[in-house]
């Protein structure tokens, strides 16, 4: 059966060009980037080229890029590497688990954490952050784009608050990289984490931007890799893949690839909203990344929708992949004030560079019949329509 993949916020396929760029570093050019000999030098050169490409994607200097194992590691380093017991952290209720659960752990270790709520459109209010400031506030950590709704957060305003209060500012940009232009100087953040596999590089590689002069304690101890900021032999093929993906991401803003994704997303969204009753876009009121739509379908269990579409060959999700299987409805949607039934009846559809118009056509052709069957067999729908 044909498979159509619309769950690119969970992970993306490695693009063929990225794969080709990585291929030699598994076999012929397998050297350790720390070695003196030519095999090592080739690997070192490749890692540094990749660092340059990632720096370019983020508007940073190459020396400010630390390669990591992914977004979770970057978020952990940013938080655990800067705060100590007694410090205060400001974050939001809609962060990814990588930030939320790090904060929960830090609370156990003696830190204070304030979780800033969001409005009905999934946006954090900067003034709420200002009000949460305390004398012992050490860091503000707010994501750039939400993984479930795609809603972009008001980082420019948060930056001002962080600067005025002279506290560190970290942003988890995992869901923004490659989708919207990023410039660490415009954002004004001290730390920014990205993940390779969300932008067509492989899993197991990511990067953390650390502004020059920001002293972050490492999580791993060992060799002097990554300027002693991250011990462990470099994942050379992964890093090369991330570098190539960063180049393709940069090109995507100029060559129309991102615009193409936006127009496909908009087409899906408007078609669904206009042709299927009792639907609404979650977080559709504000600025969003161009690849994500989160749609609530009344009277539907998102789980049954995901399974039904999967059996038709279409991959989507109900919320964050990590929270599937958990009993709670999405913490992001409930934080936006959605009642639990509505949060449970929501689907996230996220596009990537590999998606085509034909695939959009296909999902739009199967969605109505699937939804009709789900609603016909839904006890809630039956009772609502009898009344």
């Amino acid at each position, binding site marked *: 059966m044909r498979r159509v993949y619309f769950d690119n916020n969970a992970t993306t396929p490695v693009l063929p060009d990225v794969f080709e760029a990585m291929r030699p570093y598994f076999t012929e050019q397998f050297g350790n980037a720390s070695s003196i000999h030519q095999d090592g030098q080739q690997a070192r050169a490749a890692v540094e080229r990749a660092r340059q490409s990632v720096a370019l994607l983020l508007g940073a200097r190459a020396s400010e890029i630390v390669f990591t194992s992914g977004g979770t590691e970057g978020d952990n380093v940013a938080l655990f590497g800067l705060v100590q017991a007694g410090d205060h952290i400001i974050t939001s209720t809609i962060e990814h688990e990588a930030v939320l659960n790090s904060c929960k752990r830090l609370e156990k270790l003696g830190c204070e954490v304030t979780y800033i709520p969001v409005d009905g459109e999934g946006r954090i209010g900067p003034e709420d952050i200002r009000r949460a400031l305390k004398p012992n506030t050490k860091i503000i950590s707010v994501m750039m784009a939400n993984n479930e709704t795609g809603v972009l957060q008001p980082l420019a305003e948060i930056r001002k608050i962080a600067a005025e209060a002279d506290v560190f500012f970290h942003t988890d940009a995992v869901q923004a990289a490659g989708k919207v232009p990023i410039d660490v100087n415009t954002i004004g953040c001290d730390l920014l984490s990205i993940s390779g596999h969300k932008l067509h590089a492989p899993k197991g590689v990511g990067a953390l931007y650390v502004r020059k002069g920001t002293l972050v304690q490492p999580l791993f101890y060992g060799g002097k890799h990554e300027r002693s900021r991250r011990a462990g032999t470099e994942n050379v093929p992964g890093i090369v893949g991330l570098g190539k993906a960063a180049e393709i991401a940069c090109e995507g803003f100029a060559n129309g690839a991102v615009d193409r994704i936006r127009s496909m997303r908009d087409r899906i969204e408007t078609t669904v909203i206009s042709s299927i009753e009792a639907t609404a876009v979650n977080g559709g009121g504000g600025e969003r990344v161009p690849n994500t739509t989160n749609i609530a379908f009344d009277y539907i*269990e998102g789980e049954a929708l995901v399974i039904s579409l999967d059996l038709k060959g279409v991959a989507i999700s109900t919320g964050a992949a990590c929270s599937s299987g958990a009993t709670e409805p999405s913490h992001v949607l409930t934080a936006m004030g959605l009642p639990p039934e509505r949060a449970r009846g929501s689907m996230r559809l996220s596009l990537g560079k590999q998606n085509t118009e034909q695939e959009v056509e296909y999902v739009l052709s199967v969605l109505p019949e699937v939804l009709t069957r789900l609603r016909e067999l839904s006890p809630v729908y039956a009772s609502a329509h009898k009344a």
Partner: protein
Amino acid sequence: MSSKQTIAVAMSGGVDSSTVAAMLRAEGYGVIGLTMQLWNQRRLAGHDGMPEAVQGRCCSIDDVYDARRVAESLGIPYYVVNQEDRFERDVVRPFVQEYLSGRTPIPCSLCNNHLKFDQLLVTARQIGADLLATGHYARCEYDEQRGRWLLKRPKDEAKDQTYFLFGLTQEQLSRTRFPLGDMTKPEVRELAKKYGLSLAEKPDSQEICFVPNGDYKKFLDAYLEEQGEALPDTSGELVTSDGKVIGEHTGIHNFTVGQRKGLGVATGTPLYVLGLNGASKQVIVGRDEELWSRTLNVRKLNWIAVDGLREPMRVSIKIRNKHQAASGTIEMSGNEEVTATFDQPQRAITPGQAAVFYDGDVVVGGGWIR
């Protein structure tokens, strides 16, 4: 895909449901494996008397892993559907409440009625399956003459699970298949081996899936503590059947009708629990002879082989899972209540358990003992 129907299989990760999936796949059905996630086995970890991690139980990570592996080896789609909220509402809470009210509940029947053959069947149909198959030992067939779906005892009498299935409606039975009804457990294990299922030798599950080590008292404590509720004080008097107070007890939820041990009083003759009075919190005790009685009242009825009871009917009646069904007569004693009278007195008729009525192999219907 084959031209045959699509059938969902409720997969627990055990040998029975795994074999069902393999059989139906071999018969050419489009099979979809489903596992209900009903209870987080680690949820009460850390509470007094609760193990840190429970293995080899329903809803444990191991079982989902086993089910997923079977599905993968059969090449069928497989999904875990989360029903923890409903399970807690419709099974766990009533289970706790029944004990605190002096009754002895059967959560498996509640789960079958509210989860497996209700919500899971809805999900199965929503995702495009026409039927739901399970690994229960029971038979289900359409009787042209009566124009009704029948639930019948299985070939393997020792594994008979019809007692837990008496609550199924005609609609549910019409969409349900029990492929193991004509097989014995050894035959199922043999077939599992033939299909190359690595869990052919996996031991049967026995206890209530959410109660670790079968210790329901510790579970009640831990659950109520987690809910921030104090275990209500259900302690009271220990009285004999003629009303004489002979001592105190620690709480009616600690007792079950027929129980002998743990009464905490020493008398010349062995004493047994005859009954529990939820209102007065009294535990009524007496001699073994007093435990035997002939009549019981049954409520919240469900009829399967008949659409109701118009006149007294001769049946055999089963009053708990391990009870040998005994012959008697049932008749309506109110709009929604049956009085059942055994031919011979039966021991320890227990409120909260189900009474299931059989006509030979056929389940006539059943209800809950008042």
